[in-house]
């Protein structure tokens, strides 16, 4: 347990993921727990099964994508209502883009907790699962870690393997 807590702390210090920093700890933990369950499920699997799962991870929508979609649609609806109904609806795009700017710079905006609650992950979280699976698949194994050229080859090739 201690090493787990330590790994988590290391992670937070080493990787300033701005979305994670602004999500509730409970939501982060739940997302991490799901990733770990998935790793356990795939640890004994063969290469093809892991490869297939990595492909679905590459296709998974991350939280930025949901937020961009959401901001675009809400702001457009505000503009349309502003043009058709009342100019006061123009406050909608103003608020949306204001918060969107806050999200880009600081990492928090009002819809974020909702997306986190339904389990939408950041690209970094998705990639963490992906590279853990690649390690399980043996993509990073090499015979002699002392020879730099071989090391380099594996380090370049490991992350690229599909």
């Amino acid at each position: 347990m201690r090493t787990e807590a330590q790994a988590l702390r290391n992670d937070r210090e080493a990787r300033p993921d701005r979305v994670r920093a602004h999500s509730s700890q409970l939501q982060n933990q739940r997302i991490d727990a799901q990733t770990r369950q998935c790793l356990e499920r795939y640890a004994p699997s063969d290469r093809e099964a892991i490869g297939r799962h990595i492909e679905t991870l590459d296709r998974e929508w991350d939280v930025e994508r949901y937020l961009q979609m959401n901001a675009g649609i809400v702001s457009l609806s505000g503009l349309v209502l502003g043009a058709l109904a009342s100019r006061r609806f123009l406050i909608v795009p103003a608020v949306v883009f204001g918060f969107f700017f806050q999200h880009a710079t600081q990492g928090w905006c009002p819809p974020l907790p909702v997306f986190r609650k339904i389990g939408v992950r950041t690209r970094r979280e998705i990639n963490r699962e992906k590279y853990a699976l690649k390690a399980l698949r043996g993509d990073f194994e090499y015979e002699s870690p002392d020879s730099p050229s071989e090391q380099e080859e594996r380090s370049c090739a490991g992350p690229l393997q599909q």
Partner: protein
Amino acid sequence: LDLEAQLRIRDAAESASTDELTRRIAQLDNEWDFDRAVETEAALMGLLGLGLAVVIDKRFLALTAFVSSMLVLHATHGWYPLLPLFRRIGVRTQDEIDRERYGLKALRADFTALPPAGSRASERAAAAWKAVCE
């Protein structure tokens, strides 16, 4: 950009110490990715359009509308009008940044502690999780 990253990893393989690798990984973690650049730019342009609409002419709302639809386009299709510009100044996607990051982690020998295939699944999964979190 891929080539540059590959050269940096080759460089690191030849000379870098563990501390140096750790420092580079921390640098990568602070790098602004493409989504973040797009979001900042879109928010500023959207607000600019609204501001100009209020102060000068309401036709500037077209700018806000354009930015909003481009955001939806980027989310669904991955294309964005400023994509070539951002790429030229070297903004990378999070996937590209992470590829370099985990390459450096492999060099730092973060993945060597994995129990061999055939040992208990839960142990291997825990070790892999620890390796990516470090």
